[in-house]
């Protein structure tokens, strides 16, 4: 078990380093590099930049500086948002995104597990068929479609919900719905097939033979086993929520990290692009690591290897 953790942590570190390096290389492929792209700064600014960031040095030295700065946690200034550092932008944006994203993940898990279980327990009946149809369609609809259609129905036509910002709980409804639509559908399907498999297992029969009620056998015996595949999905779930936030935040004008990232791309704010990429990558890689290790701990069949 310990060996496994070490291996995985090592993999995570190597990958993160790789991401940082790739980001650096790519950013410098842009003509003029990340600091100077498309805009010729004034003499004074150029001198200051050169001093601080060694822009007149060869690339290898710049790379070393860049990595050192990263390790210290400094991601430099934003090019387009004057006066703010990338760090500031990221921490402000992340708070917002984390809130919306966190709620979406929760919704996806709770609703998905519940619907999937209901479908499995009522296999073949109309509720199962309805759930299958809805969830199959759900995984085919991209998040931007869900967002825009929701906006069309609830904001434009019905005028029930607001279209931008996060100033009230009402504002959260559509973004969360849009962000959690695909994961909920996916988890529903996953849970359904997992639960079906579990329901057919012999130990369910044993539980009934002991005299346990349907309810208890489901909750105690079935759920604990059926939910394991969903735990493995947590990693991809977080990744999807993250990328989904790019779209959802843009459409609903939410001041989150996703929106910052997308704007930085259109604005060519390369410092922000770099910083956000590395931050998000670090976040994802760490979360995946945590989830993988947690899964190994939860399943006793693997834990004791």
């Amino acid at each position, binding site marked *: 078990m310990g060996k496994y953790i070490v291996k995985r942590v090592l993999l995570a570190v190597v990958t993160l380093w790789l991401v940082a390096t790739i980001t650096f290389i790519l950013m410098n492929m842009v003509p003029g590099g990340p600091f100077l792209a498309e805009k010729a700064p004034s003499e004074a600014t150029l001198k200051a930049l050169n001093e601080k960031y060694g822009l007149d040095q060869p690339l290898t030295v710049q790379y070393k500086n860049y990595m050192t700065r990263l390790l210290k946690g400094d991601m430099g200034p934003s090019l387009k948002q004057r006066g703010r550092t990338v760090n500031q932008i990221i921490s402000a944006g992340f708070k917002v995104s984390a809130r919306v994203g966190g709620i979406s993940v929760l919704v996806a898990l709770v609703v998905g597990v519940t619907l999937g279980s209901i479908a499995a327990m009522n296999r073949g009946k109309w509720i199962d068929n309805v759930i299958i149809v809805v969830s199959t369609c759900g995984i085919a609809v991209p998040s931007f479609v869900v967002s825009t259609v929701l906006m069309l129905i609830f904001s434009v036509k019905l005028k029930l919900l607001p279209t931008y910002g996060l100033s009230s709980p009402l504002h959260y409804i559509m973004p969360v719905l849009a962000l959690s639509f695909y994961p909920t559908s996916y988890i529903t399907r996953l849970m359904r097939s997992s639960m079906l498999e579990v329901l057919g*297992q*012999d*130990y369910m*029969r*044993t*539980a*009934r*033979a*002991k*005299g*346990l*009620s*349907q309810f208890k056998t489901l909750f105690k*015996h079935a759920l*604990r*086993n059926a939910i394991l595949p969903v735990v493995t999905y947590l990693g991809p779930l977080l990744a999807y929520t993250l990328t989904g936030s790019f779209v959802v935040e843009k459409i609903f004008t939410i001041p989150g990290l996703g929106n910052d990232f997308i704007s930085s791309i259109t604005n060519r704010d390369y410092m922000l692009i770099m910083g956000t990429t590395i931050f998000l990558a670090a976040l994802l890689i760490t979360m995946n690591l945590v989830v993988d290790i947690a899964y190994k701990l939860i*399943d*006793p*069949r693997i834990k*004791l290897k």
Partner: protein
Amino acid sequence: MGKTLVDIKNLRVSFFTPAGEVKAINDVSLKMEEGEVHGIVGESGSGKSVTAYSLMGLIPYPGRIIGGTIDFNGHRINDMTEIEMREIRGNEVSIIFQDPMTSLNPVYTIGNQIMEVILLHTDKDKKQAYDRAVELLTLVGINEPKKRMKQYPHELSGGMRQRVMIAIALACEPKLLIADEPTTALDVTIQAQILELMIELKQKIGMSIIMITHDLGIVANMCQKIAVMYAGKIVEYGTADEIFYNPKHEYTKGLLRSLPRLTDKEHRKLIPIEGTPVDMLNPPAGCPFAPRCSSCMKICLGRMPEYTHLSETHYSACWLLQKEEFERRGQEA
């Protein structure tokens, strides 16, 4: 003469699948007294397990009892509600299944799974249930019981797991233990141990056992009475002696013939029963064994044979026996 424990009369069970109605059990009757060990022998699909499940009200969907009555320990099983059934499952009647690895929940400890049934049916508290569980583990011959309580199913060997299943089944001292192919998934040497254990426990606790198996060798030693099932019907029923030394049904004879014997002096080819089992979606109108029977007559294909009683305890469903009757009556007329 003991008290009647089990009385199944003319049981019919069908599974209503999308492909059609599968008549799993077709008029089966069985009577058992306290303290007896009965065997139900048959191949896969013969209906032997379903008979046992009916007794516990555990017929899986889409199966249903569509005829007959089941009496157990003073209860009319087919009239009972689910809540009433839960009271007696694991309590008055228990069952152990074929594959102990898949029959135990892999994510809970052994201790948890044994204590579960104790806490369910008795008013012991957790500590008492724990002690009782340890006691049971010792009873079924598992060493270091306290250590085992904390272990998970995959940490135990096949034989030990089956012992745990037995411990769970016996936890509430049931009147009847149903063993559905308990040794099929185990090594031969372990098989013998488990069977010995069951006989030993029967004598200690004084319970009755229904042994379900496809292996005639097992029932020879243990069972007083044996029912041979084929395609949802009991084709022959008798005491162990009657079945082994005086089998009357061609299927029973076939099963006995196919057993390899240690005492064979020369090399002999194994004698299987020719043919394939019956398609239970479209069972034939006549005797289900007819296509595989070497003595098949024209009437066997068209009409279901009635039971011929050969003694108070021995009966069989075969036209051959009826033939003798018929000829005899014909001569008398």
